[in-house]
């Protein structure tokens, strides 16, 4: 996979989360994503960005325009140095219970993307990679 363009942005405040949404929109529009696909990737980005802020203590997003052969896509890498996730399997399970539950929305975000990678361990921070292909 080759990277055609790469941008990094901080996620340190809720205004940054808004900026993340805008940046992902700009990226997906430039790749010519359909409206539904745009909505999906921006929503997924919003979920993960919020996690990075709320649970990761803040972090950053690297936004890459990638290409593999003739396919082009958007890759989002969210990273933080927070406490990390102890039980990855549990985190990926669905659970938007109003109130309780992890509510991390990782399972949902995963369904909205073509490729999804989660790396985390207690005390080692978390890195979430999302890819949506055109």
């Amino acid at each position, binding site marked *: 996979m080759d990277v055609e363009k790469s941008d990094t942005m901080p996620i340190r405040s809720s205004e940054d989360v*808004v900026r993340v949404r805008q940046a992902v929109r700009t990226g997906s529009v430039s790749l010519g994503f359909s409206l539904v696909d745009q909505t999906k990737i921006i*929503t997924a980005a919003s979920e993960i960005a919020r996690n990075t802020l709320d649970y990761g203590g803040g972090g950053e997003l690297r936004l890459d325009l990638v290409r593999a052969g003739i396919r082009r896509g958007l890759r989002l890498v969210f990273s933080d140095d927070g406490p990390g996730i102890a039980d990855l399997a549990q985190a990926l399970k669905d659970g938007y219970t109003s109130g309780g539950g992890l509510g991390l*929305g990782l*399972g*949902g975000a995963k369904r*909205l993307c073509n490729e999804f990678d989660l790396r985390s361990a207690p005390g080692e921070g978390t890195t979430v990679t999302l890819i949506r292909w055109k």
Partner: protein
Amino acid sequence: MDQIPILQVGDCLLVSIQVDMHDQLAMQLQDDLTTRVVKTRARGVMIDISALEIVDSFIGRMLNNIAAMSRVLDAVTVVVGMQPAVAITLVELGLGLSGVKTALNVDKGLALIRRLIDDGTEDWVGRREK
């Protein structure tokens, strides 16, 4: 500091969300609405999200909270104008908006609120002719 305007129409409160809200703004809207519902003794709350292109779990929870809060205060909440792409994404996300009634647009939303308040039922059948 920007605020989302809340309009009063009869015994209903109308909110139209036009901006991509950051979290504090969303929380503020929740608080403002609660206060206004109490103050005006509103029976209905209508939230127009036709301009929202993204509804993530945070906004979803906000809508659920507003509905729950209104119910406690004996008011009904109707969310109108959800865009198809948003609906499709919410379904994929697995986020249900249970406890929130929805309608296609403002007109139908107001009609629904009327039915819910007046008839206590949302069935179409038995709609009162005005």
